[in-house]
């Protein structure tokens, strides 16, 4: 077993390892394809984790990640490995596996020279993996194809080896076959990483330049920043500078994870490790930024830095209005660990005080919401997610609209909406259904390829708003769950969009307004009015529910007046019971929101807003 002997460990000591002995790699895999299990096995085989300290999916730290089996935040682990009598330091950089975090993935990839393309031998490649594979190819990474779960009875390694070979241009026999579960073939993977992944190259004498590929807030240590050193060297107690902002920090600790944080004498060319500076907010240590030495700073930042840009907005409101300060505190805390989360106070006539929040995408929204509910014990209503619209008025004034209730009144010249490049992988039998769905979502077909006889890649450009609405759920239901989806931003387009208001007894309910394509306005109005008709209890008067574009009513439902609200019998013993019932009803009334003169139960808002999209599939790839 080529674990590195103690005698040879000096040759790969941290801060004293020749770049030639370093291999930086990551793993591209679809959720559930066994990335974490394989990573666990590598930690064991290389001896960095004692078998008894092994915790399943060691690298996924947060509960939610563990529960959903997905990795949100990446980390890097340094593992020693010996090949042909030489010791190597392997840095495994864990990548987030979700579409909302494409930018983080791209930075993780940029920190590596090679990647494992890990595919479930029983399922084949998925859209998400394909998208990340393309990203890796763009970054000129060496790709090592690996088929996992070969121990499964349903595994078809021959079939999927063909598929992978076709995708990356290798021979099917080049695909490694492993079982993360049993450990079979894992040593060969480590050997192959050493043999095929190029070693990092950098100028050891140049001013230090290190790229931040992850940044994590830790309650006890403040922000822990993960970097890959490109040039020069970083050392403890020196002053570092963030090139994007020019902010300087004292380097309190520097080290590597193996996998527990281990302080070192520094980090040299090609090395991967962590920095602690005592800052308390990940915004001061942004993914993609370049770290340099403040005394001898580099002048040229490493390429690829981008400010995180929220793409999806939603209002978050506490169900109990008195939780508003608690929600604010919770968001302030989450922000420390989430550079992409933005929010500002919002007041809704229907929902009270809350926050308008911006997210990278739907999963990001779901994760934030779930953390707020689980870690901070808050009960929340979230409004229907919205994208960012650019509205130009006839007088050429421009508005950026992230909230339908702020849609400007008056003569509108043009509305632009974000569009995304969408990739769908589907079994070929569903191609027709998927194309129909994409078309109904205003998709424009860009291409189609057969990955194998029975699997097809479809490429569309599509409005992000359609994806955010219910595309993923519909895709899953039309393909019996077999299709997978990936998308990335592709600019914006002008579109015939209108704002649909929902009126209750003549009063607009801000929380239910939506910006939709004119052709979909009627369907939205009918759907929402129908839903509310079933959700809102009858009142003492007839309540019309209307959907309107401006002053034009496009759909209408009526909640008939309640005719009977009286208990039939009220004699001796009934009196106490009836009074107690009355008290209970009065409590219930406190949880009602008044929309004009209509009492709407909190639950009706929740049910109407948690439309078919958000809840159904939290864990999948979108």
């Amino acid at each position, binding site marked *: 077993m080529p674990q590195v002997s103690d005698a040879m460990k000096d040759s790969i000591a941290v801060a004293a390892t020749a770049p030639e002995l370093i291999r930086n790699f990551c793993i591209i895999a679809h959720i559930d394809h066994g990335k974490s299990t394989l990573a666990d096995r590598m930690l064991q085989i290389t001896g960095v984790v004692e078998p008894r300290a092994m915790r399943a999916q060691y690298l996924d730290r947060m509960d939610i990640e563990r529960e959903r089996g997905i990795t949100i935040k990446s980390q890097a682990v340094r593992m020693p490995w010996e090949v042909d009598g030489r010791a190597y330091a392997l840095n495994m950089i864990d990548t987030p596996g979700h579409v909302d975090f494409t930018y983080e993935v791209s930075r993780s990839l940029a920190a590596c020279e090679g990647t494992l393309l890990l595919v479930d031998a029983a399922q084949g490649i998925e859209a998400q993996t394909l998208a990340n594979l393309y990203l890796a190819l763009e970054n000129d990474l060496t790709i090592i194809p690996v088929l996992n779960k070969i121990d499964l009875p349903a595994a078809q390694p021959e079939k999927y080896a063909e598929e992978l070979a076709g995708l990356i241009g290798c021979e099917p026999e080049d695909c490694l076959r492993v079982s993360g579960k049993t450990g079979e073939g894992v040593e060969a993977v480590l050997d192959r990483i050493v043999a095929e992944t190029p070693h990092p190259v950098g100028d050891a004498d140049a001013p230090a330049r290190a790229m931040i590929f992850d940044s994590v807030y830790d309650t006890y240590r403040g922000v822990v920043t993960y970097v890959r050193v490109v040039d020069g060297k970083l050392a403890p107690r020196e002053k570092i500078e963030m090139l994007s902002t020019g902010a300087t920090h004292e380097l309190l600790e520097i080290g590597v994870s193996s996998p527990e944080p281990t302080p070192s004498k520094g980090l040299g060319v090609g090395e991967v490790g962590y920095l602690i500076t005592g800052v308390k907010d990940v915004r001061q240590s942004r993914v993609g930024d370049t770290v340099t030495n403040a005394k001898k700073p580099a002048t040229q930042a490493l390429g690829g830095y981008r400010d995180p840009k929220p793409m999806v907005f939603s209002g978050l409101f506490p169900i109990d209005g008195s939780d508003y300060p608690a929600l604010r505190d919770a968001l302030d805390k989450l922000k420390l660990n989430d550079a992409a989360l933005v929010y500002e106070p919002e007041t809704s006539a229907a929902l009270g005080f809350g926050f308008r929040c911006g997210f990278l995408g739907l999963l990001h929204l779901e994760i934030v919401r779930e953390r707020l509910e689980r870690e901070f014990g808050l009960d929340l209503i979230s409004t229907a997610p919205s994208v960012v619209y650019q509205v130009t008025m006839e007088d050429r004034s421009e508005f950026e609209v992230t909230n339908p209730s702020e849609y400007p009144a008056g003569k509108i010249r043009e509305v632009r909406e974000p569009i995304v490049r969408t990739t769908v992988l589907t079994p070929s039998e569903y191609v027709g259904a998927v194309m129909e769905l994409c078309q109904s979502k205003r998709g424009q077909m860009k291409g189609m390829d057969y990955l194998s006889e029975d699997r097809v890649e479809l490429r569309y450009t599509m409005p992000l708003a359609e994806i955010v609405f219910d595309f993923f759920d519909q895709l899953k239901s039309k393909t019996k769950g077999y299709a997978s989806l990936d998308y990335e931003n592709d600019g914006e387009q002008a579109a015939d969009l209108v704002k649909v208001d929902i009126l209750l007894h003549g009063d607009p309910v801000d929380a239910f307004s939506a910006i939709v394509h004119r052709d979909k306005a009627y369907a939205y109005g009918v759907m929402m009015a129908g839903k509310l008709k079933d959700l809102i209890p009858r009142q*003492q008067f007839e309540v019309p529910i209307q959907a309107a574009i401006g002053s034009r009513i496009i759909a209408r439902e009526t909640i008939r007046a*309640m*005719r*009977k609200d009286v208990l*039939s019998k009220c*004699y001796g*013993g009934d009196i*106490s*019971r009836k009074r107690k019932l*009355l008290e209970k009803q009065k409590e219930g009334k406190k949880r009602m929101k008044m929309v004009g003169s209509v009492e709407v139960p909190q639950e009706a808002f929740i049910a109407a807003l948690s439309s078919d999209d958000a809840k159904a599939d939290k864990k999948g790839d979108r």
Partner: protein
Amino acid sequence: MPAQPEGEAPPRDGALPAGATADAAGRPLSLYVHVPYCRVRCGYCDFNTYTAEELGPGASRADYRPTLAREADLALRVLGAHGAPPRPAATVFFGGGTPTLLPAEVLAGVLGDLRARFGLAPDAEVTTEANPDTLTPEGLEVLAAAGFTRISMGMQSAVPHVLATLDRTHDPARIPQVVRWVKEAGMQVSVDLIYGTPGESLEDWRRSLEVACAVAPDHVSAYSLIVEPGTRLGAQVRRGQLPMPDEDDLADKYELADAAFRAAGLHWYEVSNWATGADTRCRHNLAYWADADWWGFGPGAHSHIGGVRFWNAKHPLAWTQRLAEGLSPAVGREVLDPQTREIERIMLAARVRRGLALDSLPPGAQDLVAGFGAAGLLEPDGPWFAPTLRGRLLADYMVRELTGLIA
């Protein structure tokens, strides 16, 4: 009977706080007697009733009268504490269960026991509920002679398939005959109806109304069927075997009933009660709605004395044993604070014909009352506001709004 309300444990001897009887002299006293026996248990019924003859040692039907007499002794003691003067009973009401499952002589005997202890007011109203099956001319004679003045008859419906759904066994064709016997015995007759039974059409209900009105009762009560959890009917509805009564259908049937009764000279005086005149209204039930004092005897019975509500052990055996040990059978009670009494007062007043006096309502009620008036739910009647037909059907809504003004 549904679960008893939550309350505090009363003293073992049943003693009341001094305030409860302090000014009792000015308030009439009513007595309620709960007879917890039935021949069969109806599928919709959630009252406290038992079909077995023997319910445990000392709790057979034969033990009922002596045990009740023991409770009467206790009531007399409790009410007379703190020097309150004795009060003759203004009304007595035998309910159940099926009181007429007891022989008429036993019912007469129980009434005699109560009269011996409390006395009856000269014009006392004495009612018993009765199942039409259990009435005979002879039995009615016995009751009338003992001082009973009213029979409240559980007719429920005149339509066989509706009666079958309700598990009622009586023959609807007997109703006119039984009503005649009651009248011949010189007593008033009230007919109880139930509407909204699953499967009952508007036509079925109209038929029941016709039959009920045709016998020219002095009084009718009409109740919408309430599907209670824990009953067989409740289970059938839960399992989807029977439909839940529809609120609009119930409202239609209520309006139909009110029109039919009015045409027959019966006028509403409480949401579910109609009578031919002021002297045929059920004074016992009016006492409940006017917040009077009453003592409830028997298993599970509720009492109200001067703002204290208390209730007996539900099971006949528990009730019997407590009394046998010289203890009060009451197992729970509530001492109402003034605010709660006020809420109850509004809750009850909104159900009766006299309605609400504006100046008796909490501050801010004026706007609400004006709103109810504009919406056609209340109409002024002198200084009072009485519920309209629509208002009666929405009485609970008005009560919620009005009592919402009290803290």
